[in-house]
């Protein structure tokens, strides 16, 4: 991009993608890159139930312009249709809540993304950045902070599916 800052955001994201903690997550089978063309990053995240008896996989699109000063925009992603799939109607309450359809405070015509304080549009919602600092994005955080949040969602889904299968 022309403003001279875009190179910096891409360089920072590239460095995070090459970091030990990100690559270890790939090798551990927690996540993988499906597509990367800055600023778009599409990842597949595989969570597991606490006893590793069940796994659940989710794909997400991350938009990373301005990284890390600007929080990542993140949404569930259908890699075939290249669009956001409908929100789930079954699953654990935390996952249903995170993936629900809601619109940005700044533009009520736009989908707001994953409904969690670390996510770009949710950060400003309900003053979450101030009120939930432990979940808010900060520029000194690593991309794996986001990946771990997505891993938690996939793992909560896995635990719920395991319990349903056992019932």
């Amino acid at each position, binding site marked *: 991009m022309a403003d001279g800052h875009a190179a910096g955001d891409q360089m920072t994201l590239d460095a995070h993608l090459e970091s*030990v*903690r990100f690559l*270890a997550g790939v090798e*551990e089978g927690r996540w993988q890159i499906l597509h*990367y063309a800055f600023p778009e990053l599409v990842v597949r995240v595989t969570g597991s139930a606490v006893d590793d008896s069940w796994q659940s996989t989710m794909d997400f699109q991350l938009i990373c312009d301005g990284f890390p000063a600007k929080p990542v925009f993140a949404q569930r992603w259908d890699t075939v249709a290249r669009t956001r799939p409908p929100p789930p109607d079954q699953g654990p*309450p935390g996952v249903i809540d995170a993936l629900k359809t809601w619109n940005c405070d700044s533009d009520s015509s736009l989908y707001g993304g994953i409904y969690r304080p670390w996510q770009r549009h949710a950060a400003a919602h309900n003053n979450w950045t*101030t009120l939930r*600092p432990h979940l808010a994005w900060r520029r000194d955080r690593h991309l794996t902070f986001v990946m771990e949040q997505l891993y938690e969602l996939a793992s909560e889904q896995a635990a*719920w599916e395991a319990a349903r299968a056992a019932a």
Partner: protein
Amino acid sequence: MTQVKDGDTSEKKPDDDGKNIRIEVEHDGKAEPADLKIDRDDDVLAAVRKALALEPDVFLFERDKDEPLSGPIKGRKALRLIAHKSRLITVQVRYEHRTIEEKFAPSRTVFRVLEWAVGKKGFHLDATSAAKANLILPGADAPLPRDATIGRLVPAGEHVLVVDLTLQDFTNG
């Protein structure tokens, strides 16, 4: 970084000749892990011990795994390790009038302990309560980060961690 399409994550890093394993090691309760680069043909675990001057009774775990590592490390380019003197940590979780406990490797994360605590082997919370649950150190004003390993919370020489399970909505700061 080489841009990746269609799941190809095998591109070679410009500063990596393929001979090294890059390792982050959490040790001695330090907030920042040590960064190491070790020749994969070496005895990797011995090299980690030497580089960090770890005592012989310190266990090395891979993050979020139960068993301490031993023997050669094969097929890896990146590792996150936790060095800790305890093989297992007894986690006591307090909620309402009950306390339950379970043993976890110090490499397990707060998230995994929380999953156990809210699950059927723990307090067996309903799904709505479980979604709100967090673990918090007694007297603290913010919940524990879920991606933290519990080994970081237990100083060397200790092997018990006491936490409270809370359903508090932290929107009130």
